[in-house]
């Protein structure tokens, strides 16, 4: 039965229903890991941390730790029974330092005690001697030492960038520093391990990737994966910080639980969370662009220097994605992107909303802005001029014709079979092996516009979105108004910027684009739904429950959402890459349809009608001859011995990617958005405020407009925080000095723009996604770039120079930029 219309049967989707746990959240009744009642005798853990950034441990005296009150066990690397590794990729990340330390804050030993406080007090009693070495901390340090991951820089290229730039009549070039970002999830990292009979282990964790937890715990205990079950009901925020960073706690708890036979729990204190866990990668990106007198970019070259920290973690795919978004929304014919993945003695930078995309994208927007400044053009005009061409058919006109799959032009050399190429962390984005299926790929027909990685762009809607946003935000009139206002305001200067986002949706590790679901219909007509995605506040469970309700023609309250559980749905991918509802929505739909078809076939036979005509709507099943209440239909099906439980499975079609060559179709589709931000800058101090923001964002045909708008608002604010107030500072010893809210500033309610309007684009996804919706988790984060460029625009009103602002644009940096543009 094919039914994609948002008609009455699908009324649950498209509804702006609140988050499924909203009431629980605001009443404090929502259970997080630390809220789960623990069995008697539960022990608590804390890590002892390295106090230098690089060196060899020469002596470790833990006698005072062992004899501290309440301490039951102390674990060092030598005590670990099996693998000492919590890496999601290269097996280069020991749970506990083994002789050498690689960053300030690295876990060196673990304490197991009667209480959280006893464990934390005990770790401070350790006496560790080090033979300290000079750490490699900065991008410059790493370049000088040639300290890097992979053998050398990765290069993706199309055409002849160097030649095109040389031949261009005009050029801009420069360099931009882009800071990292702490995730600052409200719920810190936490895990609880519960030993079971016969050596099995159950782990309650705050993780975006329960399968990864299951895998790492099994590895650490020397067990097959079937002996370990990981469960996640919800996280209090994750933002990528719980894709791999929860491994250490879960593994430590499991090892301790196996040693002691007692439940073991661990949660990081906030300062420890800052100091131990990885953050967004900081970058330096240099650019060289050739353009013409109209602002058309003729050739462009980026060199990206990415600070990865001490272990590989997810850095390679993060750096890849930075390359894959280096052109953002602009069609570049001659382009070259070079990426250096630098290894330093700092926290291992990890996934963070956008996964390198934001860092890759912002220099492109800088280039456009700088060209517009050089030519005294409105940046929006330069953007339009360089945009990809519009999709053949507009979104309002319906879906573009499906593009037939065609083989790649040549074999991808060096491809290997799965079991040869992949390390055993195959469910992580950190896995390197790539299975390329040439038959699934397609290449550009001649004349087709392609990305720098040779993927055709066929769904581009930013021309229409820009037009509509300029209109709704009154862009042109306000631009003129701001110019006039600035002319009579010597101290305060306003700025305005519109920036677009084009974000690729899919895991770039192709095989991760799969998902499973398990749906049960009970005799009373109630439904329990489970899938591989995790809930971190983003509303995934609500959206997917709306899908399930729609498939059965029911209201959502008939569908029970349950915790993500590796025992129910195995081999899941991380809830990451914005893919949660795309993948799990489809898997749940498949499971529901299987059950629905069984019920339909049974009732159709009973009533002597064609099964295809049986409808599920308004809480009823209608065969034409009869109308059954859904619960009655289910009861009859049960009595008729029809199975009312089913699994569902989905894999994203039409994607293929060779990350070494930088060729293929890594993304199923693109999500789009644009934001206009107006800011005012105090030219005496560099302080600023956001005055007004208008956003038009493409969530396809939204599954839930309320939740999607919430994601867009939150993404924009978080992106703005990254580029404005959130500054990470390490000292010369490699110690992170910003490790608490007293020193690290995330945006608060009072920092949001005074006027803040978010509108959803009213088109639907050209690609065949769940109810034609689009992923919405990460793309709006990059709308925050409009805040950054609004500040830059305000600074540019102070003098003739180009601001060339670095990120984050702290007041001090803004003031320095004002002084620079005045001096120019």
């Amino acid at each position, binding site marked *: 039965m094919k039914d994609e219309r948002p008609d009455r049967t699908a009324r649950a989707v498209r509804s702006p229903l609140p988050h499924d746990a909203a009431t629980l959240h605001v009443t404090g009744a929502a259970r997080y890991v630390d809220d789960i009642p623990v069995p008697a005798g539960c022990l608590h853990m804390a890590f002892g941390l390295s106090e230098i950034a690089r060196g060899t441990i020469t002596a470790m005296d833990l006698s005072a730790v062992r004899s501290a009150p309440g301490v039951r066990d102390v674990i060092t690397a030598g005590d670990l029974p099996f693998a000492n590794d919590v890496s999601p990729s290269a097996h280069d990340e020991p749970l506990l330092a083994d002789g050498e330390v690689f960053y300030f804050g690295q876990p060196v030993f673990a304490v197991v005690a009667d209480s959280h406080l006893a464990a934390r007090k005990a770790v401070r009693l350790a006496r560790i001697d080090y033979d300290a070495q000079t750490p490699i901390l900065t991008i410059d340090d790493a370049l000088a030492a040639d300290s890097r991951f992979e053998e050398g820089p990765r290069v993706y290229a199309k055409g002849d960038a160097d030649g095109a730039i040389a031949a261009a009549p005009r050029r801009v070039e420069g360099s931009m520093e882009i800071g990292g970002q702490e995730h600052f999830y409200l719920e810190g990292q936490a895990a609880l391990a519960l030993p079971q009979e016969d050596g099995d282990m159950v782990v309650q964790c705050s993780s975006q990737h329960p399968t990864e937890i299951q895998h790492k715990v099994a590895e650490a205990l020397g067990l097959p994966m079937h002996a370990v079950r990981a469960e996640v009901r919800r996280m209090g925020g994750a933002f990528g910080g719980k894709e791999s960073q929860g491994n250490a706690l879960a593994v430590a708890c499991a090892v301790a639980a196996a040693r002691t036979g007692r439940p073991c729990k661990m949660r990081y204190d906030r300062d420890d969370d800052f100091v131990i866990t990885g953050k967004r990668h900081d970058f330096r990106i240099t650019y060289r662009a050739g353009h013409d007198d109209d602002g058309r970019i003729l050739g462009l070259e980026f060199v990206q220097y990415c600070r990865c920290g001490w272990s590989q973690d997810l850095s390679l795919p993060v750096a890849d994605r930075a390359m894959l978004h280096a052109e953002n929304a602009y069609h570049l014919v001659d382009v070259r992107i070079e990426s250096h993945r630098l290894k330093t003695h700092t926290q291992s930078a990890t996934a963070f909303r956008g996964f390198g995309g934001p860092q890759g994208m912002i220099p492109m927007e800088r280039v456009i802005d700088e060209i517009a400044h050089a030519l005294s053009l409105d940046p929006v005009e330069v953007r339009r001029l360089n945009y990809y061409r519009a999709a053949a058919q507009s979104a309002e006109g319906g879906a573009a014709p499906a593009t037939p799959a065609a083989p790649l032009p040549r074999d991808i050399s060096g491809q290997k079979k799965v079991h040869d190429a992949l390390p055993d962390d195959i469910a992580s984005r950190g896995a390197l092996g790539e299975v390329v299926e040439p038959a699934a790929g397609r290449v550009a027909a001649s004349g087709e516009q392609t990305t720098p990685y040779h993927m055709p762009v066929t769904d581009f809607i930013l021309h229409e979105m820009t037009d509509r946003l300029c209109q709704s935000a009154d862009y042109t009139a306000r631009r003129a108004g701001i110019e006039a206002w600035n002319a009579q305001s010597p101290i305060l200067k306003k700025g305005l910027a519109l920036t677009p986002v084009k974000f690729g949706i899919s895991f770039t590790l192709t095989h991760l684009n799969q998902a499973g679901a398990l749906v049960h219909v009970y005799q009373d007509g109630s439904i329990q739904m489970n899938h591989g995605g995790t809930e971190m506040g983003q509303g995934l469970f609500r959206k997917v429950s709306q899908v399930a309700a729609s498939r059965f023609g029911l209201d959502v309250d008939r569908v029970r959402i349950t915790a993500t559980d590796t025992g129910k749905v195995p081999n899941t991918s991380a809830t990451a890459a914005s893919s949660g509802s795309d993948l799990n929505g489809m898997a749940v739909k498949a499971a529901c349809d299987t059950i629905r078809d069984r019920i339909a076939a049974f009732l159709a036979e009973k009533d002597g009608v064609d099964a295809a005509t049986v409808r599920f709507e308004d809480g009823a099943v209608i065969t034409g001859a009869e109308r059954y209440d859904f619960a009655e239909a289910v009861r009859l099906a049960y009595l008729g011995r029809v199975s009312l439980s089913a699994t569902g499975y989905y894999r994203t079609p039409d994607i293929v990617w060779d990350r070494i060559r930088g060729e293929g179709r890594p993304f199923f589709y693109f999500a789009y958005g644009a934001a206009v931000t107006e800011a005012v800058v105090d030219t005496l*101090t560099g302080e600023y405020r956001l005055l007004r923001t208008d956003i038009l964002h493409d969530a396809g045909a939204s599954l839930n407009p309320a939740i999607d708008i919430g994601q867009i608002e939150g993404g924009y604010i978080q992106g703005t925080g990254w580029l404005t107030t959130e500054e990470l500072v390490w000292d010369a010893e490699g110690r992170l000095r910003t490790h608490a809210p007293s*020193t690290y500033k995330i945006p608060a309610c009072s920092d949001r723009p005074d006027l803040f309007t978010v509108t959803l684009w009213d088109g639907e996804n050209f690609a065949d996604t769940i109810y034609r919706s689009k992923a919405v988790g990460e793309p709006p984060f990059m709308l925050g770039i409009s805040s950054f460029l609004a500040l830059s625009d305000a600074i540019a009103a102070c003098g003739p120079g180009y601001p060339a602002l670095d990120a984050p644009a702290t007041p001090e940096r803004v*003031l320095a930029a004002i002084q620079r543009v005045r001096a120019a």
Partner: protein
Amino acid sequence: MYNFDFERPKSVADAVKALQTEEAQPLGGGQTLIPTLKQRLAMPSKLVSLAGIDEIKGVCKDDQNRLCIGGGTVHRVIAEKAMSEGFPGLTGLASKIGDPAVRNRGTIGGSLANNDPSACYPAAAMATGATIVTDRREIAADDYFKGLFETALEEGEIITEVKMPIPEASAYMKFEQPASRFPLVGVFVARFSDRVGVGVTGASESGVFRWTEAERALGSDFSADAVKGLSVPADGMISDLHGTAEYRAHLVGVMTRRAVAAAQ
């Protein structure tokens, strides 16, 4: 926290007596000291709470037109009384310290005794030429502040009162570090009939100071323009993760001009 004894005397005399124990420490509103104890950065043998001493609480005006503030008076009360006694500049300062919880617990005596380099009151004390009254003597503000967290107070000496000459016009301007909301730089400007005082907090490595060059310029012309060409050297300013010495030096000039403009 380490263990300590606790006393809550009712009079200054009893408090002084209680403080004669070695390593005993007076406790004002506890807004700095309690977190310090929690982090085990201090280990007093005994805490002597001043919160029960009514004689050091309250605000009044004396016959020399000075605002006399009891050392145990909390910021919220100071903010209210300073306004009704004609000292709105002090109201502006006191009403923006920390948050409501801090303002209902923290005291002026505690703040001045602690002399945090980013505290607000020292700027007002310096600018107005306040007198710090203790259980045993009176100390002029110029002689009282001795650097970061250093004051002229002796062991066991208690601030019982602060006498601030009420200026004809005054204002306090601070540039807040956005995460902690402590001033990166704070400037208090006070205009009297015969002089102008400028107190600067948060900026210098040697603690609160009077910007005498600005005082002279403003003495003859109390306008923002009068200090436009002046600047403090970056040398000796605090440089840390929240701002460089150059930025702080720059902000001293800006905050001074703002305070002058606000006071007019």
